[in-house]
């Protein structure tokens, strides 16, 4: 009984419902058109494609064109990449070469240590006028160096200070 009521209600709903817009007959009709004789021409076009007339040469050309375009693109990318690398490397090589040169000259200096005698000779030659006679300077300096090589004891210092007339206060401070 209840089931019948539900069915009746459904039937009523269907009747009361507005018609489904998609059930409009004109919607199922084809709204598109084609040129007259189009379908009879399909066979000829298809024959040309199947037997490779016209279309194959076109497809070969388009394939070749695609391959050539790809090759050109790769060449361009390679060329650009190579140019960038070349420019970067040239800069690097130049700066590396500079640094190598600098290092080499530093290395040369470091590898040939200048002896004290050579240094003294150099100072004597160039700054002799400020520090007196070259020969006396050399002899005096060498003597001092030799003296410095010997250990100096306390008595010798005291004696030196007394001999050189250093003020008594300084002497006392030095002794302490």
């Amino acid at each position, binding site marked *: 009984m209840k089931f019948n009521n539900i069915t009746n209600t459904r039937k009523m709903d269907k009747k009361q419902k507005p018609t489904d817009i998609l059930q409009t007959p004109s919607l199922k009709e084809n709204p598109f*058109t*084609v040129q007259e004789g189009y379908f009879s021409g*399909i066979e000829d076009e298809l024959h040309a494609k199947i037997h490779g007339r016209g279309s194959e040469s076109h497809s070969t050309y388009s394939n070749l064109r695609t391959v050539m375009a790809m090759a050109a693109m790769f060449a361009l990318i390679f060329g650009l990449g190579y140019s960038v690398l070349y420019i970067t490397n040239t800069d690097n090589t130049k700066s590396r070469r500079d640094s190598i040169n600098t290092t080499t000259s530093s290395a040369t200096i470091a590898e040939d240590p200048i002896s004290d005698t050579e240094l003294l000779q150099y100072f004597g030659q160039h700054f002799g006028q400020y520090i007196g006679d070259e020969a006396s300077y050399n002899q005096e300096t060498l003597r001092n160096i030799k003296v410095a090589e010997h250990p100096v004891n306390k008595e010798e210092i005291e004696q030196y200070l007394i001999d050189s007339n250093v003020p008594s206060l300084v002497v006392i401070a030095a002794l302490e």
Partner: protein
Amino acid sequence: MEDKEILIIYKEEGKQEYAFNLLVKKYSERLYWHIRKLTCSHDDANDLLQSTLVKAWKYLPEFREESKLYTWLYRIATNETLTFLKKKRLTAVLSLSNYEAILENKLKYDSSFNGDKLQLALQKAIIKLPDKQKAVFSLRYFQDLKYEEMSEILNTSVGALKASYHHAYQKIKAELEETFDE
């Protein structure tokens, strides 16, 4: 002529081309309209029909008659069209444009479209569907194919097709009602 008869002729020596022509005559128009409704363009439909028939010619020797000949042809045509639409959508995305808007515009200025306002609204609503749902709706609504046949064509279960068609139908109906209630 029945498909079976065409296939028998095709198997005879030297009659392949003749049999294939019979096939083309029988199905090219139906296939064309199926493709045209999915692409909304005569040029695209023509190209896709040609590639469908070329493929059919190429693979007909391998046809095992496990399915009906026309569902096999519809399957090739639908696959070709869906692949084409996918590519077009991708191209549109890459060029930052809306493919649906392009199709709508094409339809608006198509001189070969002779439909009324309701038919135009229907085509616009179909354009908005996802591609596969579009194919499901078109095969069922315009071509009146059975779900079993559609299942062979689209390689989808009958249940899934029924659900897909129902969704498509409701979407289009709602859109049309909204347009014509205003």
